[in-house]
């Protein structure tokens, strides 16, 4: 994986006169020694897996802890009633993000993108887009390359692990990746893609990772909705011509520094934040298990 900066990707794109996604595709071909078809087939299978995971959502199941499950179904019912405040697209993004997060907590098959905790963000945006827009499968796959390229840069120059960088690194990264993908689908070029990502990330900087009982459930599942909606909001802003005042690569650098500065008690250790509240303690106690 060779990209440390978004500007490296856009420079190659301009140089070779190929789109952002193709730079990532060609890099993958080189890196793993695969053909264009092989790489795109693998990416296509990721799209198939998230499509299937969304379709198989089951609102009746609960996670082993009993904390997670059913909320995606509630949102769907609410959306179907048709008298919600926000429009169908956004509400469906929210619904799909929560559904995928719940499926993950309930031991269903998902795609970690970039992580299991944040697995609902990108699918929520892309699958809702497919449903509402007349878009070819090819273009969705291309959008996944865009997301992957942004994720690679963040992983290399900052982090995509909550234990290392807090939740900005998981839900934040997923949001930035989804925003870039969405900007591309809406016809954006390099400029819109990187600024959509930067604007989204800026609004997730400093987010803590403080999951209750150490499980990828609370606050993770509902936070997927925030990441996905953020991606919609800021990709739209980017398409409107709004630009991040801070260079996109500098936003990623900031995220890296903030991640390091965040105390470890807020990085997946369960020692602070939501994880030590009274409510969390009750849940943790109930869960304290005995290995037979």
């Amino acid at each position: 994986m060779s990209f440390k900066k978004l500007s490296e990707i856009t420079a190659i794109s301009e140089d070779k006169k190929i789109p952002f996604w193709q730079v990532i595709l060609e890099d993958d071909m080189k890196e793993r020694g695969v053909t264009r078809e092989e790489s795109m087939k693998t990416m296509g299978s990721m799209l198939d897996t998230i499509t299937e995971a969304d379709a198989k959502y089951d609102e009746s199941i609960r996670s082993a802890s009993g904390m997670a499950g059913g909320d995606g179904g509630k949102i769907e019912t609410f959306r179907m009633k048709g008298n919600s405040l926000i429009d169908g697209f956004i509400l469906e993004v929210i619904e799909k993000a929560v559904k995928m997060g719940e499926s993950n907590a309930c031991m269903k098959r998902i795609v970690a993108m970039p992580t299991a905790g944040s697995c609902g963000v990108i699918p929520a945006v892309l699958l809702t887009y497919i449903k509402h827009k007349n878009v070819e499968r090819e273009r969705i796959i291309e959008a996944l390359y865009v997301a992957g390229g942004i994720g690679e840069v963040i992983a290399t120059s900052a982090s995509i692990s909550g234990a290392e960088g807090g939740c900005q690194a998981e839900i934040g990264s997923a949001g930035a990746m989804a925003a870039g993908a969405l900007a591309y689908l809406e016809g954006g070029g390099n400029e819109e893609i990187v600024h959509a990502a930067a604007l989204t990330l800026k609004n997730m900087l400093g987010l803590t990772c403080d999951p209750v009982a150490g499980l990828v459930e609370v606050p993770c599942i509902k936070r997927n909705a925030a990441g996905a909606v953020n991606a919609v909001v800021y990709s739209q802003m980017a398409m409107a011509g709004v630009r991040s005042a801070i260079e996109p690569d500098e936003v990623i650098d900031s995220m890296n520094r903030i991640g390091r500065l965040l105390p470890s008690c807020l990085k997946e250790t369960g020692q602070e934040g939501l994880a030590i509240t009274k409510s969390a303690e009750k849940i943790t106690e109930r869960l304290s298990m005995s290995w037979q």
Partner: protein
Amino acid sequence: MNLFDIIGPVMVGPSSSHTAGAVKIGYVARRLLGEKVVSADIGLYGSFLATGKGHGTDAALVAGILGMKMDDDNIPNSLKIAKEKGIKVRFGKADIKDAHPNSVEIKLVGENGRQLSIVGESVGGSLINIAKIDGLDANFSGDFPTLIVHNQDQPGHVAEVTGMLAEKSVNIATMQLYRANRGGNAVMVIECDQEVPEKYLEWLKNLDGVNKVTYYSLIEEGKNEF
């Protein structure tokens, strides 16, 4: 790390370290044993012990021991499947100290009586490290074909093994040497870029001073224990 570590992997949730990584540790243990498992003694440590139940770490480890991969729909049912197959599974607290926070000690007995014990660590994402095999240090990821040679700590063995690998055009990715005490039991752990030919494994097994050869192949159905 490649593109499909970012858009991927496909896995059964909820946690890449506590679920997907755990499946992989169980899977590598099963492959290293090289025969059907009849009993598994699983000792959990650190965060695996504290949060494993909620993450399905127990089911994940057993799924791997049954030969499942991290994207298998049947992972949540693995404990039931093991029971149906009459495999004895016992969970407890690992008897290890100062280990990686996500560690597990797995002791397996196979249908022909073969035994294996490993200490596996889930080190982030779904990446793992096999830290010990049969009580001796190891350290390998399960991402490469891996040759593990238990031998007497005598001069010449390392040169013999690496010389033969070179002759077979097998490139060494990483190599580590450990020993319990001078002149006692030693172990070589060699991660390779290519698969090691079976003939060579046979030759190695019969070499003087070699006690045991274990091979972890990336080829699915390969015979892997000698």
